[in-house]
């Protein structure tokens, strides 16, 4: 049973550029959440997708957007990259109503120069 997978593993971008990160949820899961983890900090909630719609959003600017596909996979897009966007981006999948057990992928390390 494959767990949550994310691609790419690492990414280096320049300020002002745009980036797309991808996530495939754990088999059987239909809800995907995205988190940003700065070095030495706990993950911060960006948003959650369910039934191809953004169901909940954290305190992140509109430069952060996402999408969920019919197969439950998801993308995170960040426009106009800033140096402060450098972080580990984590995707978590879950089944709603099952105690909110969220299972995380290995993350994508984004470096903005």
């Amino acid at each position, binding site marked *: 049973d494959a767990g*949550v997978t994310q691609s790419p593993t690492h990414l280096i971008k320049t300020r002002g550029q745009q980036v797309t990160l991808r996530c495939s949820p754990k088999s059987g899961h239909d809800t995907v959440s995205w988190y940003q983890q700065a070095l030495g900090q*706990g993950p911060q909630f960006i948003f959650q997708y369910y039934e191809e719609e953004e169901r909940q959003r954290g305190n992140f600017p509109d430069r952060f957007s996402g999408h969920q596909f019919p197969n439950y996979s998801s993308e995170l897009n960040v426009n106009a990259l800033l140096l402060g966007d450098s972080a580990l981006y984590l995707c*978590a999948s879950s089944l709603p109503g099952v*105690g*909110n*057990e*969220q299972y995380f992928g290995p*993350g994508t390390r984004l470096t903005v120069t």
Partner: protein
Amino acid sequence: QQQVKQSPQSLIVQKGGISIINCAYENTAFDYFPWYQQFPGKGPALLIAIRPDVSEKKEGRFTISFNKSAKQFSLHIMDSQPGDSATYFCAASRVSGGTSYGKLTFGQGTILTVHP
């Protein structure tokens, strides 16, 4: 009201000892409290979780103690091993309805080092 405060920031324990990490929350609407373990370069892995209708939950060497009136919960790792050396995060969320559903609010993390 959404904060979760975790302590200590770092912890050093001898092999075979007990590791204790504490968390406090503010939002009384939280009703799901998981602990995650994260190794360098990896994503957080769900260790154990508790709902507020019980005061303690044990899974192997890991135990969560929960004090609803104090709005505190803690992770105890019994017989700590060098392989337990990792960063531990507590988190909280609201499962049962409301607009907070699904969002995990994390503590700042505790770096645990277990010496052989």
